[in-house]
């Protein structure tokens, strides 16, 4: 899709930066080129306004009041749940649990699905390219239950080793926990096929959708997975809110993992009964305004159209891939056939952190480091990468700024042309 040298390359089709107030602020006297969308996206005015409007016009606690405002807030919150349901094409609204984000969603599944069910010797299958948030919750549950982790290796181009995956799937595999899109490499994994094969072995499947939902249409029923997690803040929504999709049959049999208000049916000191999903998993007052603003973000994204966003970002990815490959001394890390708009790269003789600092001074915001994927960095034998990650408001000018800033850094380091080799101790 993003084959370099494809003469019929697509061109970017969106021009939406004006919808995002922060993008008009200069950075260090330069035009801001925000290329850190993998870490978090900027928010359109519609989202900022939705959150503010809730507090100005509708604020009350939910599920608690007979007064009008409380009922109104409850309707808005339930409406946000229905919006997420449609967004993921879940069969039912009660399959959507609001969480703080992807991390909390995965921890919920680990503690509520995994901990009561897993036993010594059971296997959890994940991959080398997982974000720490799809590794550490499983390590904790392994300590609690005696289950063990099995890891699908990654090939040199950043794709999963599917033959190894087939070999690792076995009788003892209870769960496959796999990222939809790698935050560090951009690889789009074949999650539908992997789900089918895991289900054949009787395993449950969790897909980490943190880097997917803002960049392509996601249909959890088409994927067939049992759980799907994402964060609002990577989807042009606010921080502190996200969602877990869980198939109703599974959620119904899962015990609560946190106790408190809103998640019970009745409380007595000798017997407390719990509310059905999703309330069972939403103890305490949730991020009401956040959920409503997340729904506004989904409305915004769907208004633009995920198909168009995908075409736009693929065109940018294609352009950026060629532009970076054309700079002597620059090496892309992650060249999978199917990629989302993530450009991870190394520059000869310049450590990613030095690069990040120098690019920042040029107004170009990227991420430098291990991207919370230390096992993946170890796999590639590198301490980290520089990563430019695209969003729907980016344009060719942002990538041109990136390229110009890399040239600046090479000039400063005296490595222009990729000749000088630096200290040679950074791979």
């Amino acid at each position, binding site marked *: 899709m993003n084959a370099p040298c494809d003469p019929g390359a697509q061109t970017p089709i969106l021009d939406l930066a004006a919808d995002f107030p922060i993008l008009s602020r200069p950075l260090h*006297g*330069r035009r801001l080129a925000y290329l850190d969308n993998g870490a978090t996206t900027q928010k359109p005015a519609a989202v900022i306004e939705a959150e503010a409007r809730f507090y100005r016009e509708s604020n009350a606690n939910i599920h608690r009041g007979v007064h009008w405002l409380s009922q109104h807030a409850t309707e808005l919150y339930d409406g946000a749940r229905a919006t997420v349901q449609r967004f993921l094409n879940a069969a039912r609204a009660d399959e959507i649990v609001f969480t703080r984000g992807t991390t909390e969603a995965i921890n919920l599944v680990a503690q509520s699905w995994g901990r009561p069910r897993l036993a010594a010797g059971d296997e959890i299958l994940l991959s080398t390219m997982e974000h720490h948030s799809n590794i550490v919750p499983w390590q904790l549950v392994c300590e609690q239950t005696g289950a063990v982790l099995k890891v699908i290796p990654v090939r040199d181009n950043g794709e999963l080793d599917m033959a190894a995956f087939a070999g690792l799937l076995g009788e003892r595999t209870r769960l496959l926990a796999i990222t939809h899109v790698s935050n560090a490499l951009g690889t789009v994994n074949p999650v539908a096929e992997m789900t089918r094969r895991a289900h054949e072995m009787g395993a449950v499947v969790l897909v980490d959708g943190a880097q997917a939902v803002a960049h392509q249409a996601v249909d959890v029923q088409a994927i067939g997975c049992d759980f799907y997690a994402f964060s609002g803040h990577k989807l042009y929504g606010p921080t502190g809110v996200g969602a877990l999709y869980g198939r109703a049959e599974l959620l119904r049999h899962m015990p609560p993992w946190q106790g408190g208000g809103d998640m019970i049916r009745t409380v007595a000191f000798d017997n407390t009964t719990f509310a059905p999903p999703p309330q069972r998993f939403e103890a305490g007052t949730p991020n009401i305004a956040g959920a409503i603003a997340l729904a506004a973000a989904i409305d915004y994204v769907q208004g633009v159209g995920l198909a168009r966003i995908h075409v736009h970002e693929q065109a940018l990815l294609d352009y950026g891939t060629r532009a970076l490959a054309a700079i002597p001394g620059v090496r892309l890390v992650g060249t999978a056939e199917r990629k989302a708009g993530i450009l991870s790269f190394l520059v000869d003789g310049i450590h990613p952190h*030095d690069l990040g*600092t120098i690019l920042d*001074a040029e107004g170009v915001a990227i991420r430098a*480091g291990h991207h919370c994927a230390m096992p993946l960095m170890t796999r590639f034998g590198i301490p980290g990468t520089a990563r430019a990650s695209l969003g729907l408001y980016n344009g060719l000018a942002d990538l041109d700024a990136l390229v110009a800033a890399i040239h600046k850094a090479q000039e400063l*380091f005296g490595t222009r042309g990729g000749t000088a080799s630096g*200290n040679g*101790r950074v791979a």
Partner: protein
Amino acid sequence: MSGMQDSLRELYQEVIFDHNRNPRNYRPLPAANHHADGHNPLCGDQLTVYLQVEDGIVRDSSFVGHGCAISTASASLMTEAVKGKPVAEVEALFRDVHALLTEGREAADPARDFGKLEVLSGVKEFPARVKCATLAWHTLHNALVGEHETAHTE
């Protein structure tokens, strides 16, 4: 040119590039009787500092590892600066450099002549990079006080 570009040039001076490209004392030290590891997990910077201390004097010092230009140059400059100094003086230098990098010149001993190390003070304008410059120094301190725990800056 904005303040940020000025700050960048204050930090990335020729001394830094020179010590990054050709780090001094970059080797293990078989005669070392003190050593410690340092690690900045956030950056992946990792180094080992070796010291040969005799009669209370740092006779030789070296390091190996990998990191960004700031952390490599800081380690390189450090190994040069401590050679031949009494341990007590090295510890005082550690405290002053730490103060210089985190709080500024005023926080260090007014009589202190930092010499080439002065260049490191440029990191003060880059809060995210201060740890890069201090890593080698924390590791040096651990090596001297015999802490075998890995020094961490993050």
